């Protein structure tokens, strides 16, 4: 247009200069075309961005962070009801007693306010000789109340601890367990003139303990200290030592399964071959244990017999003991992972924990083989544990002399097997952090602990579920935390919906476990915490997370730049030129207009 006008215009006015002026409005067509192309390109950029974007399921980062913060700031506590009954005390004020015990407990728990401990409420009953009671109940008073006069002083005769335990259970059986478990300590003042000064303290199989003695009223402060010690050290912490295996090393697989793999190792079958009937042991002795531990872990038991499995450490002959000796310093080298093919369990799929329990039968060259402790004594169990791995027992055959050329084939007798299983149970308890002996000694005295045929007493199982819940929640939160850190650090990682859902459900289960714990549901919180941990691990170890996308930024750039770099150059340049030209032409037109006006 302008070209035509340019050509037509020159003659109109004499001062018209075609270099600096124009008489028509500059056209917008080309500017419009180029700018629309540029705009469509700019509009297309988000779409392209979207199309090369990889799929990432949104993870609840905030919830993950808040879970870990919450677990760190407020350790998980379970409600526990402590009940102390003082029988045969003449004139003791229950309120005074209660405050003293409370102080004692606070003093003891102050040192270790760890996760999985008790949020306790204490109630004290004092029953005097005439079987009259005065109570002080806790603030959150339970429906469980001790009926006065049920406990008789003469019921606590010496030597019948099991019956006492049963009778105490009957006394407190009416307790509802809506809000936490109920633990009770009964202190019986006998006041037998002829009795000695002896004070007997027993912890039962259930959730009761009792202290029986003469003249307890005189040793009032001592008794209060012991009662609070029972509450804290036994019922709350399970008699664990602080420096023993920590709760973080709970030998439970992340899918909540434990495989107990029992192996009988004949180190040299040419000398003798021993076999066992483990199936019977499994049915008779291990089944109750696995059943008792069911809320904590799903336990399966396997056994095998292996041959030609020498140990890899050396032992020396001791003349005095007439036997071969291996020392505790040899223990790290005892397990021969080259020759002991223990780990052939296809049944333990995924992330189950396998605990190996090994019975080692020494060969003729090293029989009898004994473990010497650092204090030069010989170990009674002749075995050792390796935390998170399992335990080893050296079992010496009755007769170490090789009688004939041909190897004898024997079966381990039931009595021996029973002893072996007892040691196993002890080792198993140790792996869970409990003491293997039935005694608990503190500075104040010794407590006798009744053992259960199920391997674990009820209060021990309570401790385990508390610790286990706590451990699971911790592990869940750390796993989710590292997952979220990983996801945030790798922006080009594909995250499937499945992972997002697992994380969501894991958080949900963790929440549920926390609320159950605060309500005192031990087994329900243990099981939901187990679920939370297993889901978190599933999300973290999801196979798709391993394949980081190789469609990196460099790749993206290399693929798209041959097209977009030249094209964008063209488009932008064209738009810029047209814009410049338009401005120039417009200026020309404006000067023409002003010229026209002036003229």
């Amino acid at each position, binding site marked *: 247009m302008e070209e035509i006008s340019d050509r037509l215009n020159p003659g109109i006015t004499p001062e018209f200069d075609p270099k600096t002026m124009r008489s028509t409005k500059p056209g917008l067509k080309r500017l419009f075309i*180029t700018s629309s192309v540029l705009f469509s390109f700019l509009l297309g950029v988000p779409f392209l961005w979207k199309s090369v974007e990889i799929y990432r399921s949104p993870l609840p980062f905030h919830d993950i962070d808040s879970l870990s913060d919450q677990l760190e700031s407020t350790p998980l506590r379970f409600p526990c009801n402590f009940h102390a009954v003082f029988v045969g005390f003449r004139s003791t004020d229950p309120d005074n007693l209660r405050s003293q015990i409370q102080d004692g407990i606070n003093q003891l728990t102050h040192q270790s306010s760890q996760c999985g401990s008790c949020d306790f409420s204490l109630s004290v009953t004092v029953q005097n000789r005439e079987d009259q009671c005065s109570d002080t109940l806790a603030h959150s008073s339970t429906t469980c109340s001790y009926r006065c006069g049920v406990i008789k002083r003469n019921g606590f005769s010496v030597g019948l601890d099991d019956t006492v335990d049963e009778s105490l259970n009957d006394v407190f059986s009416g307790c509802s367990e809506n809000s936490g478990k109920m633990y009770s300590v009964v202190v019986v003042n006998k006041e037998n003139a002829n009795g000695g000064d002896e004070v007997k303290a027993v912890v039962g199989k259930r959730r009761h303990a009792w202290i029986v003695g003469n003249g307890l009223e005189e040793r009032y402060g001592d008794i209060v200290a012991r009662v609070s010690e029972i509450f804290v050290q036994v019922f709350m912490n399970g008699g664990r030592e602080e420096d023993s295996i920590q709760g973080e090393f709970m030998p439970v697989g992340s899918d909540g399964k434990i495989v107990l793999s029992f192996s009988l190792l004949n180190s040299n079958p040419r000398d003798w071959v021993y076999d066992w009937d483990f199936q019977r042991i499994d049915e008779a002795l291990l089944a109750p244990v696995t059943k008792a531990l069911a809320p904590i872990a799903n336990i*399966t038991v396997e056994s*095998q017999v292996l041959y030609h499995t020498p140990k890899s450490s050396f032992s020396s002959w001791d003349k005095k003991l007439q036997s071969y000796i291996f020392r505790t310093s040899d223990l790290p080298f005892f397990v021969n992972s080259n020759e002991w093919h223990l780990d052939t369990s296809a049944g333990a799929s995924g992330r189950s924990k396998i605990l190996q329990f090994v019975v080692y039968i020494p060969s003729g060259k090293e029989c009898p083989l004994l473990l010497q402790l650092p204090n030069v004594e010989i170990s009674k169990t002749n075995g050792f544990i390796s935390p998170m791995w399992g335990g080893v027992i050296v079992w010496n055959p009755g007769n170490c002399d090789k009688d004939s050329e041909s190897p004898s084939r024997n079966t381990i007798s039931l009595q021996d097997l029973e002893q072996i299983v007892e040691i196993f149970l002890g080792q198993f308890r140790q792996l869970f952090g409990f003491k293997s002996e039935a005694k608990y000694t503190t500075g104040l005295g010794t407590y006798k602990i009744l053992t259960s045929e199920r391997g674990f007493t009820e209060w021990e199982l309570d401790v385990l579920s508390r610790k286990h819940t706590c451990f699971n929640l911790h592990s869940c939160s750390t796993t989710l935390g590292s997952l979220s850190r990983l996801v945030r650090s790798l922006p080009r990682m594909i995250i499937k919906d499945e992972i997002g859902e697992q994380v969501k459900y894991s958080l949900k289960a963790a929440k549920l476990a926390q609320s159950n714990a605060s309500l005192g549901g031990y087994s329900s919180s243990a099981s939901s915490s187990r679920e939370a941990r297993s889901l978190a691990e599933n999300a973290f170890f999801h196979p798709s997370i391993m394949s980081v996308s190789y469609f990196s930024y460099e790749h993206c750039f290399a693929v798209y730049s041959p097209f977009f770099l030249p*094209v964008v150059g063209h488009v932008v340049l064209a738009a810029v030129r047209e814009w410049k030209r338009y401005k120039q032409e417009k200026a020309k037109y404006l000067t023409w207009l002003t010229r026209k006006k002036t003229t």
Partner: protein
Amino acid sequence: MASLLRSLILLLIVQSFLVAIAFGSKEVEEFSEALLLKPLPDRKVLAHFHFENRAPPSNSHGRHHHLFPKAISQLVQKFRVKEMELSFTQGRWNHEHWGGFDPLSSMNAKPVGVELWAVFDVPQSQVDTSWKNLTHALSGLFCASINFLESSTSYAAPTWGFGPNSDKLRYGSLPREAVCTENLTPWLKLLPCRDKDGISALMNRPSVYRGFYHSQRLHLSTVESGQEGLGSGIVLEQTLTVVLQPETTSVESNMQPSWSLSSLFGRQVVGRCVLAKSSNVYLQLEGLLGYESKNVDTEIEAHQLWKNAEFELSLKPERVIRESCSFLFIFDIDKSSDSEPFDLGLTWKRPSKWSCQQAPLHSSRFLMGSGNERGAIAILLKATESQEKLSGRDLTNGQCTIKANIFQIFPWYIKVYYHTLQIFVDQQQKTDSEVLKKINVSPSTDKVSSGMMEMMLELPCEVKSVAISIEYDKGFLHIDEYPPDANQGFDIPSALISFPDHHASLDFQEELSNSPLLSSLKEKSLVRSYTEVLLVPLTTPDFSMPYNVITITCTIFALYFGSLLNVLRRRIGEEERFLKSQAGKKTGGLKQLLSRITAKIRGRPIEAPSSSEAESSVLSSKLILKIILVAGAAAAWQYFSTDE
């Protein structure tokens, strides 16, 4: 308290003991080992190790074991395996010289690489899942890439052409799997004595893997107990077949080499595995038939067989058993000790020659055609010499016929045209109906499943040769599907030729002790032979091609787009005017030069254009700007790439 616990435990034990007694005494797990040695006609020696482990029917399988490997039992339990065979083979069985019609060859001549087949005891819909899980478990157990059999393109479900007829059977093979010690060690781990003691102590790795052929096999089958509420028993059979070349010192070329166990393996047997129920060594000698056929009946003469004019054994055999065409010397290694190891030797005194029994037809397979586009696979069956002597002919309709089953798996990238199947009998083309009795074809689907062909041929007994050919097109693989060594070519698994009417077995004339090896040899087994593995070269792309293609297409697109945009915003009239004015001014370097030249020629002074200098300065500044821009982009790119 402890005593109370103990008494309680005792009570429980006694109780369960009584219960166990009430249920009746149990069978126990049994293990037995055996070694069969056999001199071969082509101056080699075959050693066949045989281990059998039996677990009686029990409900505690996978949980409590004494001798039986727990891992295998758990495998059977977890994947509901009814029968399974896994073999690792290196080398090819020489059917002509090493025998093609005896139970040893029909059971232990396996295709190169890994072969796995399994029958499951699960509903039909779960068979494939079980197979996939099983391959993964086995690959972990045996340190092999058996998990490659997981993909549906690498296995097939044979119906009748393979052997065991079951619709829950899956078969797959990996011809390229390299077999070595790392596969043997986990295999040995399943034996109670491993290679520490007994016959398996002979397995010196260098000598085993130096051999011409070695095949390590694991066969397991479940035995139904028949009792209600009782699980099934498991029989695990492990064999290792090696063909070794004894080092010969004799100068005579036609003399068979003499050997002993220590010269073959470099080791000796110092005693039996104490856990084995029986551990025997057998020596099978063929070709003594003509020599001894007259006077072998009495036992004394049979015992004198071990030292005669032809050969001499270093040890006296316990027993000698006569088979229809061979002798079996039985040795018990019980008597050996550390001081007096068991070292069986065979010394030949006279040149001796014999031949092995052959399968009715000798099979081979090859590729035809050239180029990277199409080809043909041919299977050639040739009659062997021993064919006339064989029994097992089917005399239906008064005609003597031989039946042969051919089972073949084609990978999907070998696109077979089944209509091009041609069968030539004695060089004459036959129609399908004449020789083909049964055929079952399952075509392959691209990238989903492999093709499978099973066919049953019925051939006249006097047949000399049969050739089967089938044409195929080579497919294109996706760039991701090529293996790292794509130029090596692709393997087509061996075809299996079996003869359903022919069964091989050793026919012992005496009643045998219950040795598992002998009873397995005595069982009738289907005569079968595997063909060669074929190597098909496929067109391999230039793997940088995608980027080249991307770059070229993008550049073309960019050029097109740029020129289109330029055309759109072009002002033709203005340009013409501009050109005209330029022509008047004679600007531009070349034009200036031209005008100068013409001026010189014409002898006229040059009219210097006024605007040209200004324009050139603009041009140079633009050029500098462009160079700076490019340099800046390069520097930015460099920075960006090094930063990563």
